[in-house]
């Protein structure tokens, strides 16, 4: 299986002088294609920071992040922006969507950025909506969708750009357990059927229960890396 993501000795510090803290303190980890992996740890362990670094949302003080062999830690400006657009999908805890666009348009948005021709876009949006079980609801704006439905649209958008990996930071934190479970089952299904790679940052038991691999983080270093 090919390696999608590889980090080499990542370090990221915050604060200055006395308050200097290494949120990520020398982490080297590899994620392979098709994984359904969760980075877990208590609050303040550095898991969100790690996810941000892997996703190119932040730059490390030391170390490299290789995605499909390219060092994204060194990219800036349009380069990293385009890279994220084409290779990484994101799902955040809440408010993922652009409020003034409908669900359909939100999913379409990423493809517009990529320059996908109109016919292809329409087809793919409908396909995505179907995959996440929201067929027929594409015209609704986020305000008209439930929390769970919004997260599903986020998943659809993340998939629509055909990324190498989907990063999800606490995707179920704002949902009740039933909805959360449904969302996670959907993601697991996509992972199994479509071969999409998922990397979570979470301390939700439900995610941990479904994950194939758990990377335990505490105080900025990997404590344990268990595969199930």
């Amino acid at each position, binding site marked *: 299986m090919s390696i999608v993501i590889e980090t080499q000795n990542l370090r990221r510090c915050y604060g200055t002088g006395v308050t200097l803290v290494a949120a990520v303190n020398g982490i080297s980890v590899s994620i392979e294609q098709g994984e359904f992996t969760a980075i877990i740890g208590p609050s303040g362990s550095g898991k969100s920071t790690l996810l*941000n670094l892997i996703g190119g949302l932040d730059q490390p003080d030391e170390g490299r992040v290789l995605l499909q062999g390219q060092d994204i830690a060194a990219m800036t400006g*349009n380069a990293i*922006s385009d*890279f*994220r657009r084409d290779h990484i999908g994101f799902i955040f805890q809440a408010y*993922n969507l652009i409020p*003034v666009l409908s669900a359909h348009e939100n999913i379409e948005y990423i493809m517009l950025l990529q320059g996908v021709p109109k016919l292809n876009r329409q087809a793919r949006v409908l396909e995505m909506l179907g995959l996440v079980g929201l067929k027929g609801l594409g015209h609704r704006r986020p305000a008209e969708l439930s929390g769970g439905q919004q997260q599903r649209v986020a998943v659809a958008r993340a998939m629509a750009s055909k990324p190498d990996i989907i990063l999800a930071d606490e995707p179920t934190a704002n949902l009740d357990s039933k909805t959360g479970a449904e969302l996670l089952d959907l993601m697991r299904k996509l992972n199994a059927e479509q071969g999409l790679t998922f990397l979570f940052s979470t301390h939700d038991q439900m995610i941990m229960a479904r994950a194939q691999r758990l990377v335990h983080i505490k105080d900025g270093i990997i404590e344990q890396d268990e595969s199930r």
Partner: protein
Amino acid sequence: MLLIQLAVRNLFRNGRRTFLTCLLITSSLVVMILMDGLILGMLGVMVGGITQTLEGEAQIYKSGFRDRFDATLYLASPESILTVLDEDETLLAYAPRVVVPAVIGSSYNTLGGLVYGVDPEKELAMSRLRQAVIEGDYLSNSPRALLMGRLMAEKLEIGIGDRVVLTASAVDNNELVQGLFRISGIVEFGPKELDESMVFIPIEAAQALFHLGDGLHQIALRFKDFKDANRSDLALARKIKDDGIEFKGWLALQPGVGAMLEMTNYATLIIGVVLFLFASLGVINSIFMSIYERLYELAVAKAIGTRPAFIGGLIVLEALALAVMSCGIGLPIAFCLMTYFAANGLPLGGTMEFSGVVLPGRLHPELLWYQFVQFPLYVILLTVVAAIYPALFAARIAPARSLQKAL
């Protein structure tokens, strides 16, 4: 296009803020147009008062004549000049005049003053001479008719129908000449300088009496657009100005008032700029608020791969859409206000007794096309410029920090 679609929809997200900012931009435009109209209207009132009394908006005369009204400095063959004037499109009217210092005598007294030889018909469109007649009749064809300033008539102790003797040096041989006239009317302009020192007779009589032939001392001009009078590049001026011939606009002829107007113009210009800086502050404030409100959303957009330039462009486009919308609202409002005030005038606190003739105590702002074309463009441009700094800020949002901060 996606960018435009997003921009327009974003405008209506926060209806209240959009409304308030729109209010600010619209008000700025309306104020800008009204101010300009006011200034022009005021200028028109003042210029009218000054120039239409007697001086005219511009004058053509022989070099040196105005220094001390030396009657020997006259335009000897004015036909060519008059032809040019007849053909000129920018002129509204002109009045040829003879002006000679003379001694004016009655049976009781003598005084020094100026004799104006005027064409009664041409003066109608040119000056307020006719309106200034407070007693008796305006000049007619009678060659011996004379109009006299009220204060002078009082000092000479004469009235309508009385005889007046004018004594001066003929312009060709310096010999003394005298002419007998009868007062047909008394005039009052208001300013002492005019009413105590002038008499008016028909121009042919003056030319004959002082041996001028067809000569003129002064041609007073009135333009269709009074601002033309002072333009340094006026074609008419260039055609006429010569080695011995002067063409001066009223600003140069009335230095005191000219100075005042120039100063207030500068002041108004500076204030205009200052006010728009102020409005821009409000607009920048508003745009920043709209960015802060969506910081998280913009961070997410950047995270999923939106380029910084796209975000920046979105902000600028929103500002542009807002400005265009505001102008769309502001222009009709300004138009209605301006047409109403242009027709009815603004009260000026009582009538103005200026130059003797009572001017209506109302100020009529002037409505011109450029106010409704150029000003909205300025406003739109200004709004877009105001949006640049916030746009750069938005484009440079670091996704990681903003995502963390908001939650």
